[in-house]
C-alpha cells in the first residue's frame, strides 16, 4: 500500500464534565490510514470510536496529539486551507435522521457543500449535478424537491452519502453507516459504498461495532477498547489469529453459518461491563474483564507493540 493519507499520532480527546471531572473518550491513539484502503474501527458501544474518528479528521477539536492529512496538521490549518481540506475529507453519519436538516429539501441538503464552495456557475448546473449524484447513489432524481421526512432510513442514508460525495472527497469517515438501518437495507448501503469507492478512488474509515461486517470489507482493522487501540492488524490476520483477549472474545461472538462448527467451538463470554471512561482503571484497561489477567496487568499499562509484521497488540502476554 501507498503512503498514509491520514496519520494520527498520540491523539487525545477529553470531554470536560461538570464537577471538574474529565471523560477520557480517546486516550493516546496512533494510527494511519493509507491511500485507497479501507480501515475498520471496531469496539463496543461507548468505547470512543465516533469521538476518535471525528477528532482524527478535525470535526472535533483535539486535547493533545496531532492528526496529519497528507503531512499537514489538520487542527492547525489556516482558514482557507481548512476550507479546502473540508472538500477532501467527508463524513457519513450514523443516524440518518439526526444528520439531515428536516427543514431543507433534498436538493439543498445534497448541494450544501457545493453551495459553500461554489462548485457551479448557474442554478441549472447545480440541479444537473445534484441529479447526477442522486442517480449515482441510487436515488430517483425526481425526488429533488422532497423533504427528508418523506424518506425511509435507507434512502436518508443515501442522501447523506450523496451530500458527502458532492464535494469530491478523497477520504470518507463512515460512522456506523448501517447500524441504524434495517438488515435488508444494510447490504445495499455497503454495496453502494463499495461501488462508489471503485468509481471515485475513495479511502474509507469505517466505524462499526459489527466485526463480521468490518472484517468482510476492510483491509486493516483497529480494535478499540475504552478510548485506546488494543490491536491493529490486517483484516485476515485479525480474524485468523487474534492476539488480544478482547479481540478473541469479539471474534468468538461472530456466529458461524455451520451448525456443527458453531456447536463445537468454544465461546469466550465477557463478564462485567465497560468501565467508566471518567475513571479508567490503571494498568491494562481490559484487565478487569480479561479471562487471562495476571497481577501485572492491573498495575502496569501495556504498550501497543508490533508482534508480527503489521500486527500490533497492547497486551502483556506478547
Amino acid at each position, binding site marked *: 500500500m501507498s503512503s498514509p493519507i491520514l496519520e494520527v499520532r498520540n491523539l487525545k480527546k477529553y470531554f470536560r464534565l461538570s464537577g471538574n471531572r474529565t471523560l477520557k473518550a480517546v486516550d493516546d491513539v496512533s494510527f494511519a490510514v493509507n491511500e485507497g484502503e479501507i480501515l475498520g474501527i471496531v469496539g463496543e458501544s461507548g468505547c470512543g470510536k465516533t469521538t476518535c474518528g*471525528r477528532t482524527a*479528521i478535525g*470535526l472535533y477539536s483535539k486535547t493533545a496529539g496531532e492528526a496529519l492529512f497528507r503531512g499537514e496538521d489538520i487542527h492547525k490549518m489556516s482558514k482557507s486551507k*481548512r*476550507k479546502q481540506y*473540508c*472538500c477532501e*475529507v*467527508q*463524513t457519513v*453519519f450514523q*443516524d440518518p435522521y*439526526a*444528520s*439531515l*436538516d*428536516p*427543514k*431543507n429539501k433534498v436538493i439543498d441538503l445534497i448541494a*450544501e*457543500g457545493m453551495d*459553500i*464552495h461554489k462548485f457551479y456557475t448557474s442554478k441549472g448546473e447545480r440541479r444537473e449535478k445534484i441529479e447526477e449524484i442522486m442517480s449515482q447513489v441510487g436515488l430517483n432524481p425526481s425526488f429533488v424537491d422532497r*423533504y427528508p*421526512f418523506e424518506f425511509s432510513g435507507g434512502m436518508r442514508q443515501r442522501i*447523506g452519502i450523496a*451530500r458527502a460525495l458532492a*464535494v469530491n472527497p478523497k477520504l470518507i469517515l463512515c460512522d456506523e453507516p448501517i447500524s441504524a438501518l434495517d438488515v435488508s437495507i444494510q447490504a445495499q448501503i455497503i454495496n453502494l459504498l463499495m461501488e462508489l469507492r471503485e468509481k471515485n478512488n475513495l479511502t474509507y474509515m469505517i466505524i462499526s461495532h459489527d466485526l463480521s461486517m468490518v472484517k468482510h470489507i476492510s483491509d486493516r482493522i483497529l480494535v478499540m477498547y475504552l478510548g485506546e487501540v488494543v490491536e491493529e492488524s490486517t483484516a485476515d490476520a485479525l480474524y485468523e489469529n487474534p492476539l488480544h483477549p478482547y479481540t478473541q472474545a469479539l471474534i468468538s461472538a461472530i456466529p458461524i453459518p455451520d451448525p456443527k462448527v458453531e456447536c463445537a467451538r468454544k465461546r469466550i463470554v465477557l463478564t462485567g461491563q465497560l468501565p467508566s471512561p471518567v475513571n479508567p482503571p490503571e494498568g491494562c484497561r481490559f484487565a478487569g474483564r480479561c479471562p487471562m489477567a495476571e497481577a501485572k496487568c492491573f498495575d502496569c499499562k501495556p504498550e501497543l507493540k508490533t508482534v508480527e509484521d503489521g500486527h500490533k497488540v497492547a497486551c502483556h502476554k506478547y
Partner: protein
Amino acid sequence: MIKKKANVGMIISAAVLIVIIIACLMAPLSPYDPNLVKPLEKFQSPSAAHWFGTDNFGRDVFTRILYGGRVSLLVGFLSMVVSIIFGTLYGIISGSSGKIVDGFMMRLADIFMSVPSFLIIITLNIYLKAGISTLVITIALFSWMSVARIVRAETLSLKEREFVLASEGLGAGKFWIITKHYFKNVFSSVLVASTNSIASAILTESSLSYLGFGITIPNASWGGMLDGAQKYIMTHPSLAVYAGACILITVLCFNVLGNSIRQSYDPKSRR
C-alpha cells in the same frame, strides 16, 4: 417539516381576525367622521344609522371602534414585528456564541424582564412625542425578551444536532449555519411567539390608552374608548362593552391562533 393541519380553533380565530382586520381597513368607508362632535346626537341607542349607537359627544361608536381597531392592530403588529426581529436575532446570536457572550446577553435580557416595564413605558410615553411610533418602540423595547429566550434555547439544542456538525464538516462558517439552519428551524416557534406578542402588545396599547398615555384624544383607540365610557358606566354601560369586547375577542383570537399553530407543529400533540 411536519405538515400543517388546521383545526377548528385555528379556523375560527383566523376567520374572526380576518373579519376584524378587513373591517378596520375599510373604516374610511363609514359615512361618519370619527372625531366630529355632534352634541345633539349624543347617547343614541343602536339603530340602522348608528349600529352601535353614539357616545357622549354624539360620535358614531361603530366608526370609532373601526378607527380605534386600526390603531390597536397597527401598534400590535408593528411592535410584534420589531420585537420578533430583534428577539430572534438576539436569541440566535446569544445561543450560537460562546459561554461568556451568551451569559452576558442573557443576563441583559433578564434585566429587561425584571424591570417594571409598564411604568417605564408610561414614563417614556410622557416624555417622548406621543404617537404610534413612540408606542411601537416603547412596547417593543420590553417585549423582545421572551422571543429571544425561546430562540436561544432552540439554538442551543440545534447546535448539538448532527446536521450542524455535518455542515461544519462541509466547511460552513458560523454565518452560513445561522442563515441556512438556525433561522429555518426556529421559524415555527417564532411564528407562535409572534401571535402571542401581538396579543400582549394590543393589551399594553389598550392599557396605555385607557390611562391616557397612548394615542392622543380625540383620536379613537379601544383603550381610550374604554376610558371615555367609564364615566357613563352606570347610565350607558353598552359604550364600554363594545370596546371591551373588541379587545377581548382580538386578543383571545391571537392567542388561540398561536396555540393552534404550536399544536399543529408539535408532532407529539398530533394524533
